């Protein structure tokens, strides 16, 4: 097969990883109007929880049971973080929030290593690693794309068609106005955090069978996830997924044909800055226009 096509296919494969995480980035951005720099680490920690639930040394639960228990635990954990850590500083400037994100980043990273040690863990997939189409896509990757698309549909429908999704966006963007129409902003924020943590946990569980589970699995991945979300548009779940795939492909093209594999992270960096400057709304996002 032609190298170009192969790299594109491989880019789609890693793009699926980024798309998953980009979706989680959009979820939290919609819910709290912020990036969560600790999102990757939270997803990684959730994945460890799932691993513990499944592993023989842990509880030894079957995959799907562990999968859903992990989602629920992550949801509760995310909501609890909002209530315990962020609610008391809800009026503080953005600066304080970023600091707390970095604090969470550091804490989850450290805790994961402390509790589960640093040796790579194998994470099972219910789909199997066998080839679905020889040399193109494995069952796991197909399953991963499938689950990502299901999540995309759910998130899209949630924000688009449910009053609570609409209320969540409203609460994030304009908390005071939201309160005035009777929205419980604190509840929405907690809910948003919970959902974002849940989406992140699914991303983690889909990614880990490919990358193996280690405390540092998400640092670089999150950067690409951010890039995907920025490229696609921070307010659009569909955009984030498309953006994730695009970043995957672009990364491979650039790495193979232009800058070489040594500068792949830099590609993500440049991409983020350029898109933010040139087309801040991304491909499918909405520009925030305000008239006075």
């Amino acid at each position, binding site marked *: 097969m032609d190298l170009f096509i192969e790299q594109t296919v491989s880019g789609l494969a890693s793009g699926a990883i980024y798309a998953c995480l980009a979706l989680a980035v959009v979820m939290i951005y919609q819910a709290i109007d912020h990036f969560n720099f600790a999102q990757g680490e939270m997803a990684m920690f959730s994945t460890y929880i799932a691993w513990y639930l499944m592993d023989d040394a842990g509880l030894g639960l079957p995959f799907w049971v562990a999968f859903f228990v992990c989602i629920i635990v992550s949801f509760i954990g995310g909501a609890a973080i909002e209530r315990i850590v962020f609610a008391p500083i809800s009026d503080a400037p953005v600066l304080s929030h970023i600091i707390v994100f970095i604090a969470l980043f550091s804490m989850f990273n450290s805790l994961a290593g402390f509790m589960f040690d640093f040796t790579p863990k194998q994470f099972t997939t219910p789909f199997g690693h066998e080839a679905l189409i020889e040399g193109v896509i494995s069952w796991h990757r197909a399953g991963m794309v499938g689950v990502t698309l299901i999540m995309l549909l759910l998130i899209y429908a949630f924000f688009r068609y449910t009053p609570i999704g609409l209320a969540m966006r*409203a609460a994030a963007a*304009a908390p005071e106005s939201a309160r005035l*129409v009777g929205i*419980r902003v604190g509840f929405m924020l907690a809910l948003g955090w919970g959902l974002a943590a849940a989406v992140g946990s699914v991303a983690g569980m889909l990614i880990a069978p490919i990358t193996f589970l280690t405390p540092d699995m998400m640092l670089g991945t999150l950067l690409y996830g951010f890039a995907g979300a920025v490229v696609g548009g921070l307010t659009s779940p569909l955009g984030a997924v498309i953006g994730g795939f695009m970043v995957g492909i672009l990364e491979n093209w650039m790495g193979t044909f232009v800058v070489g594999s040594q500068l792949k992270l830099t590609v993500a960096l440049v991409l983020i800055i350029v898109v933010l400057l040139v087309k801040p709304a991304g491909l499918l996002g909405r520009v925030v226009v305000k008239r006075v």
Partner: protein
Amino acid sequence: MALLEIKGLKAYYGQIEALHGFDMELEEGEITAVLGANGAGKTTTLRSICGMVKAAGTITVEGENVVGMSTEAIVARHKIAHVPEGRGTFVRVSTEENLRLGAFTRRDREIEKDYERVYHYFPRLKERRNQQAGTLSGGEQQMLAVGRALMLRPKIMLLDEPSFGLAPIITEELFKILGQINREEGVSMLVVEQNANLALDISKNAYLLETGNVAMTGPADKIMDDEQVRKSYLGY
């Protein structure tokens, strides 16, 4: 008993007392104007009613004291719709979604119907129903804010400087519609305005605030005739 009864209202920003304990009433089905200079405490009064500032005293709505209740609960329970200063548009979502948000606390099945009710008063909004609300003009956003308030099917509407930043023609049209809403829907209104003429025109009663206290109160036409008021607030 009045629909809304305020007794001895004090309000605080941190340690600073902004309102010093006054009384105010709003009768069912009426429009009452609240006038005063900048910093007199007009906005603070409205914010106190819907629980957005720390307040002391009693604010009785339909016989229940709401001081200490959360904004969300006041809105949901007593159907008080606050049209805030600066309009509070949800800029990222569409016009119709803004309206939908106005009905957030309602659980009945007539929400869809009420869009038409709003569009009946503000046909412009219908044209723009799928447009991102942040791109509406100032006047349209003000209409949207009132429309959003209507979606609550409110008993009371609190309007904070609805004329702010609008062209005179649009302001006049807006006040006409407010009067119409008051008559047709039976919504009681508390209107804070700099433009005292317009407010007094549609109001039955009026209060004049000065530095956190009620300086004068009475029927709107009486206030309008008061020399002092005319000099200070009406400019003629």
